[in-house]
């Protein structure tokens, strides 16, 4: 199999990899905001499903994808808000409330789908936009600069999130609240409010992640169409040590390996495909195991904040 890495294959891997990475990026970066402020939300997958449904449904009914996207954002935001109420105000155990939210989102999205639509339908999603000049670069122009807006958006989100987290007072507050909420509190920062904002923002981005499937990449809605992507997105946050750039690395690794394994199958490389399918998962563990890094986990992750608990 010496001819595996030919130019078309590499280009194909890049193209598919970028598309596969798109929903993960939105969801994982959203989750990174929440986690950096100390809240982990295991309900991402449920929010993605709700986002996927509402984006699709509204997009289809209005005939305007932007309304669909807006609806997905709004629904994601509301679900994030729900998570915030439960985990921040009511101080519920975050792991369990996240799982509750996941089940709720999984169920409700299917329920709404069943009640509003007669079956799976497809729409025409966001169309590829070729970026002037860059899009004309031979070979690379096609695979890098001829995607639809939501794909570009996912990658632009990475520097934007980095900027917010590391260059703005708001980002500083987020990180402080996640590392030492008591300290932030004594400086008059409203810990709960920051967490509300990040968890809702995380929900909104998870909503977009879902919409990226239903109105930009696959252009239809089907029950449980994320099939656990939200959980992988959470794993990517850990993989990326809570930094947008790290998450980008993780999402690309995961997606490129996934694209690669499909290519291996297409090219007829002779080994059981099950092991090919395992590759991205195994690689992700392996990559973490061999890269020695300082634990960057926010100290207060998962701990509800209560004033006076010193």
């Amino acid at each position, binding site marked *: 199999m010496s001819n595996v890495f030919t130019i078309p294959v590499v280009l194909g891997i890049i193209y598919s990899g970028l598309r596969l990475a798109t929903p993960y990026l939105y969801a994982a970066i959203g989750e990174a905001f929440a986690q950096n402020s100390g809240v982990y939300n295991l309900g991402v997958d449920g929010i993605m499903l709700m986002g996927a449904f509402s984006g699709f449904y509204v997009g289809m009914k209005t005939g305007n994808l932007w309304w669909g996207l807006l609806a997905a954002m709004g629904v994601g935001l509301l679900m994030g808000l729900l998570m915030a109420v439960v985990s921040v105000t009511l101080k519920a155990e975050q792991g369990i409330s996240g799982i509750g939210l996941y089940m709720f989102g999984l169920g409700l999205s299917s329920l709404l*789908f069943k009640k509003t639509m007669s*079956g799976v339908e497809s729409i025409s999603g966001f169309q590829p936009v070729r970026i002037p000049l860059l899009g004309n670069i031979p070979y690379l122009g096609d695979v890098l600069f001829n995607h639809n807006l939501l794909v570009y958006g996912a990658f632009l989100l990475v520097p934007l999130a980095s900027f917010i987290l590391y260059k703005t007072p708001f980002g500083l507050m987020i990180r402080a609240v996640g590392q030492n909420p008591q300290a932030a509190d004594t400086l008059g920062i409203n810990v709960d409010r920051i967490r509300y904002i990040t968890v809702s923002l995380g929900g909104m981005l998870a909503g977009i992640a879902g919409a990226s499937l239903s109105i930009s990449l696959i252009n239809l809605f089907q029950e449980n169409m994320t099939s656990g992507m939200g959980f992988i997105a959470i794993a990517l946050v850990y993989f990326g040590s809570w930094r947008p750039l790290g998450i980008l690395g993780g999402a690309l690794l995961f997606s490129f390996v996934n694209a690669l394994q499909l290519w291996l199958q297409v090219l007829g490389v002779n080994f059981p495909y099950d092991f090919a399918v395992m590759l991205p998962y195994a690689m992700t563990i392996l990559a973490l195991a061999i890269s020695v890094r300082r634990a960057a986990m926010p100290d207060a992750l998962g701990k509800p904040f209560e004033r006076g608990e010193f």
Partner: protein
Amino acid sequence: GPAATPAPTQAPEKPLRVAIVMPSSITDMAFSQGMYEALVKVQQEMGGPSKMEIAYSENMFKVPDAAAAIRDYASQGYDIVIAHGSQYGTSLAQIAPEFPNTTFAWGTATDTFADQGIKNVFAYNPSAEQGGYVLGTIAALMSKTGVLGVCGPVEAGDAKTYVDGFKYGAEQARPGVKVQVTYTGSFSDVSLMAAAAETHIAAGADMLTGSSQSVVGAIGVAKEKGAKWFGQQWDQTSLAPDIVVASQVYDYTSIIKDMIAKRKAGTLGGVAYTLTLANGGLTIKYNDRVPVPPEIKAKADEVIKGIIDGKINPLP
């Protein structure tokens, strides 16, 4: 068999009660929807809910839940209880003897448990390789690039037999054709299925097919990239009317009607149905909007005939 003709003069007859337990959803555009819609169709033919009542339990992928549902329907007096999932077999073998007056149907399977002395179970099984062979033939002949892509979920069940038939048919129709097969390892991973289709297309495939509810992802990609699609299990034309060439459709109506008739005649089970092209359980549905060149269509008809006659064995 013909549908039971209702006796017009008699007092209001109690409707026939049919229940079905399915592992996925009634809108999966594949395995479960096929059976559910067949029931609905039979219901309409029989004259609506007043003549035939349908109850269903979907997404019963946990076998104990399904077993409970099957038992529950039987004890509620449903006449026919369909266990639409091969994984339900073991449970069904235990439940069926307890309800000797209920008709059970189990598929996809070939065993009616007759050897265990059970008399009230029908079995049904699609010979998916037959339609696979036909569609493989058409795809191979229509392909400009000579490369076909198959998007499989997990290499098992009718997904496997379909793929094997498709591949074999293609290779027989056009020696030298390249059939690329991928599996995503999941019945539900739409996104990976889409990537699989992308990969096939990037590797030169212009004709795609696949199986399971997750192929909707692949169909979306095919539509975007202008590749042609061949459907399996369910007519997938509605999803992408411009690219679906033909679909192998599982048509359970005839076996449902036959089971109803047999029940009326006092036979509650013991027959193992096979859905084939010959008995109309499998049909090839063309999409008028994507015309197949006449010579290829002719070739397909020839192949269908060969399979029906037993001259062509759709599996190598």
